[in-house]
């Protein structure tokens, strides 16, 4: 199991488009990926879960990946956050 902290850095927060991108990114990994914010924990493979986290700009999150490809899954999620979900802002 791997855990890493990150904060939401795209302007609009984890809105539906960004949530959809996150789900698409983690869907193909076997590992379970969870997002944790203020003791709430949601499945990153569920678009509803991600949206319901209501994570706006600057929200600190913990990402937890657990499974056979957890390193790759974690790297992919971190990369997506760092690219600001390809929103160009």
């Amino acid at each position: 199991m791997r855990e890493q902290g990150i904060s939401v850095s795209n302007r609009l927060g984890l809105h539906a488009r960004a949530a959809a991108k996150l789900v698409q990114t983690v869907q193909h990994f076997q590992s379970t990926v969870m997002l944790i914010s203020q003791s709430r924990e949601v499945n990153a493979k569920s678009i509803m879960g991600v949206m319901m986290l209501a994570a706006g700009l600057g929200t600190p999150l913990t990402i937890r990946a657990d499974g056979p490809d957890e390193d790759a899954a974690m790297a992919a999620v971190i990369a997506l956050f760092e690219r600001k979900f390809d929103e160009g802002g």
Partner: protein
Amino acid sequence: MRQVLTGAIGARGMALGRARRVQTTDVRIDPTPLANAEVDGELQRLHQALESAREELLALRDKLQGSMAREATEFVDAHSMLLSDPDLLRGLNAMIRDEHMRAGAALKAQRDRLAGVFEAMDDPYLRSRSEDIDQVIGRVQSILARKSSPEERKLASRVGEILVAETIAPGDLASLAGRGLLGAITASGSAYSHSAILARNLNLPMLIGVASALGTIRDNDLVLLDGETGELIVHPAAQDLARYRRWQRATTREGKRLAALANAPTRTHDGVDIRLYANAEQAGDLATARATGASGIGLYRSEFLFLQQKGLPSEDEQFGAYRNLVLGMGGLPVTIRTLDLGADKAGNAGLTVRGEENPALGVRGIRLSLRHPVIFATQLRAILRAASYGPVRILIPMVTQIDEIDAVRTLVDHCARDLRNEGEDPPDNLDIGAMIEVPAAALTVRHLLKHADFLALGTNDLAQYVLATDRNNDALGNLYNPLQPALLRLIHHVISAANHAGKPVCLCGEMAGDPLFTPLLLALGLTDFSMHPGQLLAVRDRIGSLEHARLRRLAPRILRAGSCDEVEAIVRQGMPATA
């Protein structure tokens, strides 16, 4: 009676059209628990409905084109993902399996639970995501309900309409916009809804939160959607239409595109803008014209209105047809050609005319109309009334000399004055244009241009008259050829004269819609084409591959050519190597 409703502005702009109500069927939820034996069947029913909903969205996504696809795909994908959401499915399965709820009741319970969570959020954008949940679950509910009654979800597919609904999913909105929808009014929803975001990106005027919309507006009511003030006017009066026209003029002046989706650019490879208009006869042509991004209607043949029924159509019947045309084009210009019949067909339209030995050279087109001033005035009045609803131009067929144009202008002014006395409000100074199809008119076009506001080249008839060849006579097939140098010199003469006079000229014969002739017409200096709307995409495609400057340089040689073969050889040199 005029009524004003108000709402919040979802997307700016104005739209005038007929209302189309889409009411989500009230889904009746059966609260009785399932028997043990029913559980597996109910799970299957739910998953089949989910699968159908996914397929619906997939089909919707595949049909979106161009700007619509760019703007809407992500929203449609978000809905597809909700339908496959592992958390949602787990919840639904548990409710059916463990609590013995029916599929409809389980969907509703999930909807209520999720909506509650979203509505408690601080961020207004995230809060309005509950609309997505509603729309997705509503789609599944209506599929479940449809199993018992196989009626299709009927969404507006006709052009010139304004949608009135409780709420509209972004995918459905994009699909309707692609089919000519002019605007949308929803009873609920917020400016943060994906549909409102999409409407703004598509320049589709939208009002939201017009709570009484469904209760007040009936199907086919004329409504003016004012996305600048947030007002919705049901049965608009003359002053509303005048405001709408002012807005149209202002947006045109500012160079704003009235509807981005209906204005896909047509541009040569070297960046010269070309305008493609549609020829139209019926509603289907309008739908295609809108969907393919025509710049307007270049030729509406009004005689079809006269030929489709026995007896002459009344002023109101004609007004209704012309107004639908104007509304259907949503503010793009519509060119209505006045009755164009000769002795061969006039009898079928309910006109009594003397038999003629040679109807092609007889009383036809404007010659016929001027001999029947009452019938002609009825048509002009109907056109003038329709012109209150959007930009209209009048096109006169079979013009031979200038006094015919002047006679029409006098009659139009007369009709406009009468209408004003009757309390109507026709616009001033409607553009009146001449169809150039008689060789004499082509040869004296400089004089005609002092009297006409625009020209339309009717090359089908012009070719017949110049070549003295009936194009339906098989024995003369080798003569009737649009590449005939005599015809091309006339076409070029007309285009140059119009350009010189600074007046628009459009070509609306068959050759305008045939990609084979596109390079030739560009070489001759044509910038406005009008064609059957089914040809529009092919011609636009062709134009995109051509070098305008290179073709224009060929014009002097084309005009010196002595045969069709020579013309063909010259044009081929101006083509890109791969074409």
